[in-house]
């Protein structure tokens, strides 16, 4: 029944595209030594997504047993070639994709079957790769919507976000769609922070921003992590991201190719050769 409607869809659901994904993504096969370091399965981290298998609708599997985890207050980074399934993995962790296998746990609790809204209520926040702001709403309204589920006073959190991203305070009455790319990313991250999340998930927060703004954003992300917020993020700028990462995962074709601390991955000759370009 649902099948029959598939070709009729458009307009709804995610439109996750990126300028780098046009045409066939380069094929990179998982390396022999997948086990640079086993993905942390036995040890349960604060946020653990284990052996995830799943795809969009009834389509083929995009995730083939991928595992990611992030410890409290630490930064975990997912890197990998275009089309590897990084965004898909993020969506799966956030419950926007039905998993065929695997589990997601948050602070020891199994949340695999929870809806995204319920995950928001449990302290998770997600900044998607594309369309991650309300373009027609003002900056301030974007932040308010981030705090939609909160019933308490949000003005303090809003002040904190403005302290983190001062430019947003200046532009708070402007429609977010009229900001520059880098400023929009700040709105997107700010919106996600408004729930006072325990886990912040970022899908390519630095996409399309200049190197200076990128460094700035990375600094802010480190700042957020220092406040005890767990961060799971996907990054295209692998080298810089791994430098600030406590844990790093290299995803290839929906599976873990390598994982280890950021330093380990940067030092791993296989990772360097096949992924970081020497």
């Amino acid at each position, binding site marked *: *029944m*649902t099948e029959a*409607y598939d070709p*009729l*869809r*458009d*307009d*709804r*659901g*995610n439109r996750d595209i990126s300028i780098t994904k046009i045409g066939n993504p380069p094929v990179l096969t998982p390396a022999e030594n997948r086990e640079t370091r086993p993905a942390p399965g036995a040890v349960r981290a604060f946020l653990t997504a284990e052996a995830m298998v799943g795809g969009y609708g009834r389509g083929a599997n995009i995730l083939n047993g991928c595992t990611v985890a992030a410890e409290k207050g630490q930064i975990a980074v997912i890197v990998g070639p275009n089309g590897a399934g990084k965004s898909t993995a993020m969506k799966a962790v*956030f419950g*926007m994709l039905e998993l065929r296998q695997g589990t997601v746990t948050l602070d020891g609790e199994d949340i695999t079957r929870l809806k*995204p*809204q319920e995950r*928001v*209520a449990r302290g998770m*926040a*997600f900044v*998607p790769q594309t*369309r*991650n*702001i*309300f*373009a*027609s*709403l003002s900056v301030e*309204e974007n932040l*308010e*919507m*981030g705090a*939609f*589920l909160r019933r308490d006073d949000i003005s303090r959190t809003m002040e904190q976000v403005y302290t983190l991203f001062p430019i947003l305070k200046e532009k708070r009455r402007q429609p977010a769609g009229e900001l520059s790319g880098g400023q929009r990313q700040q709105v997107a991250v700010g*919106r996600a922070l408004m*729930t006072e999340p325990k886990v912040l998930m970022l899908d390519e927060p630095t996409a399309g921003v200049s190197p200076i703004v990128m460094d700035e954003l990375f600094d802010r992300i480190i700042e957020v992590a220092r406040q005890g917020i767990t961060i799971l993020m996907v990054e295209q700028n692998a080298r810089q991201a791994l430098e600030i990462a406590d844990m790093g995962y290299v995803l290839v074709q929906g599976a873990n190719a390598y994982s280890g601390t950021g330093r380990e991955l940067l030092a791993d000759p296989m990772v360097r050769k096949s992924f970081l370009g020497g």
Partner: protein
Amino acid sequence: MEPLNALVVFLNFVFIPAAAYGAQLALGALGVTLIYGILRFSNFAHGDTMAFGTAITILVTFALQGAGVTFGPLPTALLALPVGIAATALLVLGTDRSVYRFYRERKAAPVILVIVSMGVMFVMNGIVRFIIGVEDVVFTDGARFVIDARGFREATGLAEGLALRSTQVITLVTAAVAVALLFWFLNRTRTGKSMRAFSDNEDLALLSGISPERVVAITWIIVAALATTAGVLYGLDKSFKAFTYFQLLLPIFAAAIVGGLGNPVGAIAGGFIIAFSEVMVTYAWRKVVAYLLPEGLEPTSLLQLMSTEYKFAVSFAILVIVLLFRPTGLFKGQSV
């Protein structure tokens, strides 16, 4: 040359009727545009939703009048309006539950929903005719005029009279109140902002914990209120007839599209643009021009661009022109 008389004729036959009609269209178009913005389809059943709300309001009005309840100089229908709105809200919420939700869950494309809404339109069409019949129903009571033509002539000494019917004043005032409430709601309240957020970016709204079903339900209730109010005002100003309300669909859609679908400000502007165009194109300007030209130069023809039977052609023409040259409407709306 008698410019004052020309002005009075213009106000009397063009400006006032068009303003009242424009307010009615604007309220109708607001409903269409909200549905489009939130549920992402063009609701063809909107005209019949208006008819349903009006029909219920009329029945309650008759019941009130039968019981001897009136609203002083104001039409009794205004007292009955809340009941009409409530009944319409139940109807559209029920329709959503039993029909639209099925397609929403399957993420059907907008074009499918448009066809579905046509089905709903036919059903509502039948329900309305079943409830109140196909005849013209006049349900206006209370004071007829705020300013009547003879009184105006006597007071001003002008040759032309100006009539301001109370239904026209009520239309404008009620529409203004409704629009002010709507904008206050959308821009100032948490729920209203969440509706705008949902309309802007559905996925991100979900990620922010905004519940789509709640947004959809509130949208239907607001639409029911707007549609019923628009229908009742139109009925008070003219008269109620099921078929006329179905025909209103064209100017209402034209208004919403001209203004930019999904954009409430656009819907209001569009309503007045369509109403003024329709009235001005179909009005015979001879009298106005005669007053403006020096004596002896009176035009011999009617100076009417199009006869009133063709008034729908005006909406249609504007619609086509806008879709050709500016598909997103005059204000920034979603493209059709």
